[in-house]
């Protein structure tokens, strides 16, 4: 599909059939589906969170997906990174993911980029992106993306997981706190973290639902709150978030 196709407002007969069950959702309809088709979403990381995020964004019919990851598939990834299979060990993650995503939905644009997100390239990578899915596995890159998103006014849906714990919030520049309002930038601990695949899948599903709502305008977003889930005892906590007026990144925005 070309950019011209993506911006075309119409839906084909195939698309009406393919996405029919979500088009039936009250308030979403064909207009909601067209908005998904016109959208460009960047998925930062195609690991535990990024795999199910990419799958469900592709199946939902997001018109253009850019997937970024510099890593290669390791056997130890396979308990959670469901876009990567045994035969993919050693392959670049974006190649492994791109191949499956194209088979899942050949009617959308998928742009795999095997690179490390840095302070030098992040502004260019954001380009004409409408939304960023934060599926990173480290805080340093999250803070980089957060700052760039604030500068460009691009929403970011943050997800984080560990063990059976998960957290998610939707960050909208100028409206909600940014990531740096919530956490100090110099978080010091870097370690291999324990994780169950189903924990990542749960948070990823919620991230995709937030993306669909944000892009289509349907429903209420998880803004100014963070959902924190402890699956070890199935506790759901909704945490109110406060924008910091003195925030180095977003403090100047209303």
């Amino acid at each position: 599909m070309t950019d011209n196709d993506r911006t075309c407002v119409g839906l084909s007969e195939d698309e009406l059939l393919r996405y029919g069950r979500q088009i039936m959702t009250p308030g979403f309809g064909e207009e909601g589906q067209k908005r998904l088709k016109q959208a460009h979403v960047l998925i930062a990381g195609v690991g535990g969170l990024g795999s199910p995020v990419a799958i469900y964004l592709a199946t939902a019919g997001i018109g253009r997906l850019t997937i970024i990851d510099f890593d290669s598939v390791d056997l130890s990834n396979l308990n959670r990174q469901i876009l990567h299979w045994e035969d993919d060990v050693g392959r670049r993650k974006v190649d492994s993911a791109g191949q499956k995503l194209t088979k899942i939905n050949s009617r959308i644009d998928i742009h795999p980029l095997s690179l490390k997100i840095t302070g030098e390239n992040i502004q260019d990578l954001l380009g004409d992106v409408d939304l960023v899915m934060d599926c990173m596995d480290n805080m340093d890159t999250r803070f980089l993306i957060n700052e760039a998103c604030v500068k460009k006014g691009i929403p970011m849906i943050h997800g984080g997981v560990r063990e059976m714990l998960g957290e998610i919030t939707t960050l909208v520049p100028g409206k909600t706190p940014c990531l740096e309002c919530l956490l100090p930038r110099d978080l010091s601990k870097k370690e291999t973290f324990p994780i169950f695949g189903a924990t990542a899948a749960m948070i990823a599903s919620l991230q995709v639902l937030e993306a669909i709502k944000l892009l289509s305008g349907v429903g209420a977003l998880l803004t100014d709150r963070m959902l924190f889930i402890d699956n070890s005892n199935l506790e759901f906590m909704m945490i109110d978030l406060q924008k910091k007026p003195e925030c180095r990144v977003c403090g100047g925005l209303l």
Partner: protein
Amino acid sequence: MSATITLHPYITGAEIQLEVNGSTVGDCIADAIKTYPAMEGKIFAKPGKLKGYVEIYVNGNPTVPKELDYPVNDGDHINLLVYLAGG
């Protein structure tokens, strides 16, 4: 020494700020555990070893590497954060 400590909602069910006493971060946390005994299991992997998702700041400054041995003075503010970096 008397300080205040802010606890992440995951630890206590809601964000809590309370007065604690102690000359180190470890002392102050032990004092907080007297009020909220359940927090011990949520923040310690084993005695003296904090879980990986816990980060402690004193007056906005990171306490690593001393962490539990980090000194606390009268009027200090301790912030005990939980964050999930994995993806």
